[in-house]
């Protein structure tokens, strides 16, 4: 019964996320646009789709809270206390990498990016080529978040100032933007925003707060949160590099 109550609460949260979107779109449809929906779209299908979105997100988050979060948080605390820097680094990278691969918003955007690239003839318009591009993009972003978490952990250990590192990251983005093919720039900048949502934030924050609590003289509030900030700059750098190296994209 506890599970049912938790599911209902979670469904409420998901609905609250979706409600403004639906209300605003409904308002614009009924008051501003006042045109019938195109034939290709049935209101019924949309309703089913929205239902799936709410249901899916609810089950997904509830499942995370039951399964992955307790184990992941426990591991994060365990590694933070153990104090072996090598293992800690490896775990930090693996955690950032693994959570990002499963991030729903990234799956959505990588798929979109692949189909847009194929439409524009930047990559072959075959299902296989599209799937490969989407998968490569996700691996690059995942590796970038892994490195970001690793760097963030190193920062907490050494006590480096967050803002100087962020500014450094911005400067690297600036330099790489000048070099990167134009077609990848938009995707790269957007990649910074999609990595930090459902799975990554709770697990990575647990690692940061656990570390900052375990080390003397660190403030969990100040040091625990900075990890996420890196996770939104590093993907930009990695995807720009990916564009420069794979070269053929745009130019």
């Amino acid at each position, binding site marked *: 019964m506890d599970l049912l109550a938790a599911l209902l609460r979670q469904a409420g949260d998901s609905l609250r996320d979706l409600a403004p979107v639906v209300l605003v779109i409904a308002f614009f449809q009924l008051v501003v646009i006042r045109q019938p929906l195109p034939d290709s779209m049935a209101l019924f299908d949309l309703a089913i*789709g*929205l239902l*799936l979105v709410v249901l899916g997100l609810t089950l*997904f988050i509830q499942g995370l809270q*039951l399964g992955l979060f307790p184990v992941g948080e426990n591991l994060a605390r365990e590694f933070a206390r153990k104090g072996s820097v090598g293992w800690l680094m490896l775990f930090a990278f693996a955690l950032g990498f693994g959570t990002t691969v499963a991030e729903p918003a990234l799956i959505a955007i990588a798929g979109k990016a692949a189909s847009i690239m194929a439409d*524009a003839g930047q990559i072959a318009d075959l299902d296989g080529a599209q799937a490969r591009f989407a998968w490569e993009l996700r691996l690059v972003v995942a590796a970038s978040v892994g490195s970001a978490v690793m760097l963030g952990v190193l920062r907490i250990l050494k006590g480096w100032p967050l803002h100087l590192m962020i500014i450094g990251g911005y400067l690297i983005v*600036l330099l790489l933007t000048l070099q990167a093919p134009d077609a990848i720039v938009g995707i790269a900048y957007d990649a910074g925003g*999609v990595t*930090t949502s459902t799975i990554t934030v709770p697990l990575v924050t647990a690692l940061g707060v656990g570390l900052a609590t375990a080390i003397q003289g660190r403030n969990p509030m100040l040091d625990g949160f900075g990890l996420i*900030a890196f996770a939104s700059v590093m993907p930009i750098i990695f995807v720009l590099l990916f564009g420069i190296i794979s070269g053929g994209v745009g130019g």
Partner: protein
Amino acid sequence: MTLLTVLFSTLLDLLPIVAIIFGFQYLVIRRPIKQLKQVLSGLALVLVGLALFLVGLETALFPMGTLMAEQLTSEDFLPTLAQGAERRWHDYYWVYLFAFTIGASTTIAEPALIAVSLKAGEISGGTIDPLMLRIAVALGMAFGITLGTLRIVLGLPLQWFVLAAYVLVIIQTLRSPRSIIPLAFDSGGVTTSTITVPIIAALGLGLATTIPGRDPIMDGFGMIALACLFPIISVMGYAQIAEWRERSSSRRESPPS
């Protein structure tokens, strides 16, 4: 795509994190997982939930965003054009208004943001008002998306906007109270939830597809980037104002020496 193929590809998506968590638990820490049954049933829920979400994304969220972009920029909807005149950027005012409303309304109600803002109120010891902070983030996000649509209409390079925002962020970072900085950067991440990202992406790509002279690859992306950057600016701005007001009011209260 059938549900079965989606389920299978979702399984592949989840494989890395499951392997990592279990691998580290059993090979490095070497202690059995407590409540293994609960963990496994949680994983099953994650798998089914993610698959259902991805199907819903394709059938509802993406099409809705694209449809709004198409309808708001269709010739039937835009103000009628005088003979031989060209479309001006302000003809698309409904697009900007839609972007602003979507940005503000999704952010102000976002559960993650409510949690973060309450926490921020606690750390600041009362100088930061949680509701004001939420409004600041929502306004930042709404402004970011609106600017994103304006950029697509005008066809200006994304780099200019992002780099200008970076400069502003850097200047503010150097002048803001230190305790607000991690929070400000985090608030940029919170605004883009799993539901808003697809809608915003579809809106941007849709606009870049339908507006004459725009190209989805060059112009369609970037809305999410701007939506993440401007809350950082507005939150630091709010903290600077709050600090400044605090200082000037305490100066007024203390007797002149």
